[in-house]
């Protein structure tokens, strides 16, 4: 693995940093405060090709690497974690499974519109009674002539009310357990499909997290994604990739909090000097910086393996576990360094601490990541 950025990656970093700074950062506080999905930002992202970074050019994508995609999620999340997760859910959870398991017709139909950002993607696995125990799917899909008929509901779906295309996991044969689970592509306009309530959340408040409801939702047979009964495996594989995206989001939040804290501690004077001059500040910040850099290498290494077709499931789990816990630690300490000001919305670290928490929960809790890592150790 190469630890330095390629010339291409350097140019990409220059672009995405400028984009994040000029287009995303100015809206971050407002998007959080008003719990508003930043559609105008998504449109700007679409215009420069960010919605289809790792999609091959033959499907209208940019033909970039997963490492570049990870850099984009990191840099967006550094200034606005909401924007970071919109891109992550779209790319890792909707575009990736179509690329992985879609038929040529499905790829031709969905990928160009998703890669261009004309359509936004989402993924539905979690249910009220199937969270970490994802095998307990209660949403069903039953064959009826030329159609599949879906019934049930999904919760906590990122991009829910703004997505046009959903990858939905449902039970097609309960008697077979996880081998009776299949994946489907549902479109927003399908009959019997509707968006339920929108969650009021602690953090990433601009991302539209909603319930999805299927009431005799009829979709054509050709919307089955991958083989019948292979949906659970596809969902797990999708989450393996998604975890690196969320790891990059957590990394971005941590880096953003580091940036703010370095700036603040240099400016803030107590006892006649900048608080950055106190050794307590310096030692704690040195430890945090070390963890952030370690998280970045874990993310890069996991994406490198994905780009090169090397198994990366445990790497993704380690990247997410470590980055999420680092984000929580860095943001909590960032608020502490800011003192009373850090607890107010005058400073972005308050938002960053709220945003960081979800990275320890979604796309597999930290406990699930430990199960995945341990599973590799003791198999």
């Amino acid at each position, binding site marked *: 693995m190469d630890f330095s950025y390629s*010339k*291409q990656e350097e*140019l*990409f970093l*220059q*672009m995405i940093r*400028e*984009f994040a700074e000029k287009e995303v950062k100015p809206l971050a506080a407002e998007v959080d405060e008003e719990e508003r999905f930043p559609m105008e930002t998504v449109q700007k992202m679409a215009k*420069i*090709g*960010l919605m*289809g*970074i790792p999609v091959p*050019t033959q499907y209208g*994508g*940019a*033909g*970039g690497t997963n490492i*570049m995609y990870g850099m984009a999620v990191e840099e967006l999340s550094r200034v606005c974690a909401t924007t970071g997760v919109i891109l992550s859910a779209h790319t890792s959870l909707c575009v990736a499974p179509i690329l992985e398991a879609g038929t040529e017709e499905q790829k031709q139909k969905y990928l160009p519109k998703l890669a261009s950002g004309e359509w936004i993607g989402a993924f539905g696995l979690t249910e009220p009674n199937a969270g970490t125990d994802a095998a307990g799917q209660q949403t069903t899909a039953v064959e009826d002539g030329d159609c599949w008929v879906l019934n049930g509901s999904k919760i906590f779906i990122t991009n829910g009310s703004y997505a046009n295309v959903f990858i939905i996991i449902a039970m097609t044969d309960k008697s077979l357990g996880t081998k009776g689970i299949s994946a489907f592509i549902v479109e927003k306009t399908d009959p019997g499909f509707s968006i339920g309530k929108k969650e009021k959340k602690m953090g990433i408040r601009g991302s539209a997290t909603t319930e999805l409801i299927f009431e005799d939702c009829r979709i054509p047979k050709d919307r089955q994604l991958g083989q019948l009964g292979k949906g659970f495996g596809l969902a797990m594989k999708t989450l393996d990739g998604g975890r690196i995206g969320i790891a990059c989001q957590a990394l971005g939040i941590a880096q953003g909090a580091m940036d703010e804290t370095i700036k603040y501690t240099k400016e803030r004077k107590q006892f006649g000097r900048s608080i950055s001059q106190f050794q307590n500040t310096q030692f704690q910040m040195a430890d945090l910086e070390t963890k952030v850099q370690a998280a970045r290498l874990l993310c890069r290494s996991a994406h490198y393996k994905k780009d090169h077709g090397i198994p990366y499931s445990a790497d993704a789990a380690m990247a997410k576990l470590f980055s999420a816990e680092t984000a929580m630690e860095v943001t909590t300490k960032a608020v502490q360094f800011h003192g009373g000001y850090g607890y107010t919305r005058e400073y972005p670290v308050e938002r960053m601490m709220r945003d960081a928490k979800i990275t320890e929960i979604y796309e597999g809790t930290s406990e699930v990541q430990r199960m995945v890592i341990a599973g590799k150790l003791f198999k």
Partner: protein
Amino acid sequence: MNIVVCIKQVPDTTEVKINPQTGTLIREGVPSIMNPDDKGGLEFALQLKDKYGAHVTVITMGLPQAEAILREALAMGVDRAILLTDRKLGGADTLATSSALAGALRTMDVDLIITGRQAIDGDTAQVGPQIAEHLDLPQVSYMEDLQYDEATRTFTVKKQLEDGYQVLQMQAPCVVTALASAVQPRYMTVSGIVTAFDKEVEVWGADRINVPEDHIGKAGSPTSVFKSFPKQLKPAGQTFEVSPEEAVELIVNKLKEKHII
């Protein structure tokens, strides 16, 4: 329509510090960027490409590392990139620079030449106008808007003045110098970045431009720098909290004190 945009790699002066002892720029560790006015000019060119299908070439004269801004321009959507680099071109002042660039431009079929108004490292605003003089072409500097009429091959250019603007018309071929503040340059696209390094950057030496050696490089540079110094910050102004009537009297008296009125 063929457009050539002349661009320059400059140190990001927002990151540059001045050595207090010598008064010179400390360039070590300072990132290099595409000069902002040049980037504005490039955006105008790319808008003409979007609208009229113009073919856009960028050219820079500089060290081999200036290739970075040519790759950036390719990622923004230009069609062709030329790096004019040669030891013989080193140490050039604005006159030698414009001679070399004009030499390169003479070898091309060009309808519109765009340069930035000025570079943030030298701030002379001379190279663009000098290129026009070398090539004996009409020019408008301080351009903040540009329209093209295909039928008459005429450019209508809005030129910024201190207290307003002029609208001027020129027939192609011609030269404009662009303002960064007039336009928001587009971002590089992801696919542009992915393919930017597969495209060719043409490397031209002094032998390609057919300009006498005493017109280029150090030999062609009559300028010698007497002294360079950092910009002095103006002191903060005074604030008076008075009624409008008192304010008029106060201002008039101040202007009289300074012999302005």
